């Protein structure tokens, strides 16, 4: 009995080891596209994969939902990934560890592009067009009734409103702490909660103001309103494909093809695509291909 178990175990082990190596193996005409662990990144992975395979004939291996920024940025540094979609603000603050001072989106893009070129030999292609930034959001109805359009408008009435936000947002120095200081927000006691709950809590009037990501599908579906960050406390988070310089040199056509996507995805469009996956339960791959077809890109 013991021997059989041992035999089975060793077979399993050897199978998993060989399985692993084939998983990481890369042949010459294949590029690997990675994605972070949230819906929008999944969709972007399959949009990039779809258009590259359609227009260049290069095979693409999709590694969606890998992990956080830390994981994917290290993977591309090591060469395990060739391409993924990064956000300008994330690259600046989280990856490069630079300070953000209020500035225009183009300035931030040029800055990260220059540093990535020089330090990492990774090339920033043209941005997709949308800006998935941190923001504050309210029920559209209430915001309109109170005449709130911007963070500054909100600050004036914040003493009478309830803020619900993720624990991370409340704690981050560049999150609520900063917003509170710059705009002089007066929320009496912000309620911390799980990231999955904030949007629903706002819809159901359990709270009035939430932290939100500006391209989340639920903003559209729950009829919420994104308020304007008029003093630019949050960095811009424009998404763009980034690609290893050696891969781009080998396959320059990938750069041209991915740049066809430039400016094609507005905030509203990205939000609608996210909603299709998160709220209608469609697969990211299907949503990505439908969008490419609708835009006449494949």
């Amino acid at each position, binding site marked *: 009995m013991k021997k059989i178990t041992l035999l089975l175990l060793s077979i399993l082990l050897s199978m998993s080891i060989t399985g692993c190596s084939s998983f990481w193996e890369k042949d010459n005409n294949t590029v690997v596209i990675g994605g972070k662990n949230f819906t929008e990144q999944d969709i972007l992975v399959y949009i990039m994969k779809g258009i590259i395979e359609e227009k260049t004939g290069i095979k693409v291996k999709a590694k969606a939902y890998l992990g956080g920024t830390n994981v994917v940025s290290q993977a591309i540094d090591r060469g395990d990934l060739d391409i993924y979609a990064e956000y300008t603000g994330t690259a600046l603050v989280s990856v490069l560890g630079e300070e953000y001072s209020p500035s225009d989106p183009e300035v931030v893009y040029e800055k990260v592009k220059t540093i990535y070129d020089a330090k990492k030999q990774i090339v920033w292609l043209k941005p997709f067009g949308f800006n998935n930034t941190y923001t504050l959001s309210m029920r559209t109805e209430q915001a309109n009734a109170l005449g709130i359009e911007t963070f500054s408008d909100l600050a004036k009435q914040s003493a009478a409103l309830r803020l*619900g936000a*993720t*624990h*991370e947002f*409340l*704690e*981050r120095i560049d999150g609520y702490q900063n917003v509170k200081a710059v705009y002089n927000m007066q929320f009496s006691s912000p*309620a*911390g*909660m*799980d990231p999955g*709950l904030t949007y*629903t*809590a706002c819809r*159901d009037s*359990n*709270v009035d103001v939430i932290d939100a990501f500006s391209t989340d599908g639920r903003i559209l579906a729950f009829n919420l309103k994104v308020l304007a960050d008029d003093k630019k406390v949050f960095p811009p988070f424009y998404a763009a494909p980034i690609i290893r310089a050696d891969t781009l040199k080998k396959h320059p056509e990938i750069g041209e093809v991915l740049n066809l996507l430039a400016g094609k995805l507005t905030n509203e469009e990205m939000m609608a695509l996210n909603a299709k996956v998160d709220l209608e339960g469609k697969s990211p791959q299907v949503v990505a291909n439908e969008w490419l077809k609708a835009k006449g890109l494949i």
Partner: protein
Amino acid sequence: MMFNNFLVMLQNRWPEIMIGTWEHIQLTLVALFIGNLIALPLGILLTRKRKLAEAVIGITSVFQTIPSLALLGFMIPFFGIGFGPAIVALTIYALLPILRNTYTGILGVNQAVVDAGTGMGMTSRQVLFMIEIPLALPIIMAGIRTATVMVIGVATLAALVGAGGLGDIIFRGIAMARQDLILAGAIPAALLSMIFDYILKRIEIAVQP
């Protein structure tokens, strides 16, 4: 040096920790109060209606097996977020240990003593309050103490549904990967457990016949 930083952080966060602790105590006390209110009489009732006991205790056991996080999430469609759903979930958690210990404790009382009471002409009510409950008290109290320690632990999860408490500080710490912040929430929670347990132990000794 690290310890110094920790102290400075504690100093800065003191009001937050105090509020968190107070919210935590409220959550715990309210849930335990309702839990006792339901489980003690129910446990006694079940010793008089033993056919029902298996079924009722079985149901509370099933509740107990639901992961606490799932239970909290499950409450949201019915009770929204905040204090309400947290209390309901915590109460459900407190039920089983109190109910089971009350039931087993009273059943475990020596039948000869009960018979002696009945023989002396005691009514069923008198047997219950003068013989069964006093003799079963250590086991009943053990159930309440188990429930208390458990509720204090599970109450940290209430922060996920916006009910505050010490979990709020812990989850902020986890989100920022800051050990010191996690400890600033976890240590008071552990202390609360120990203090509550000690108080209940004193009560148990004080009321023992």
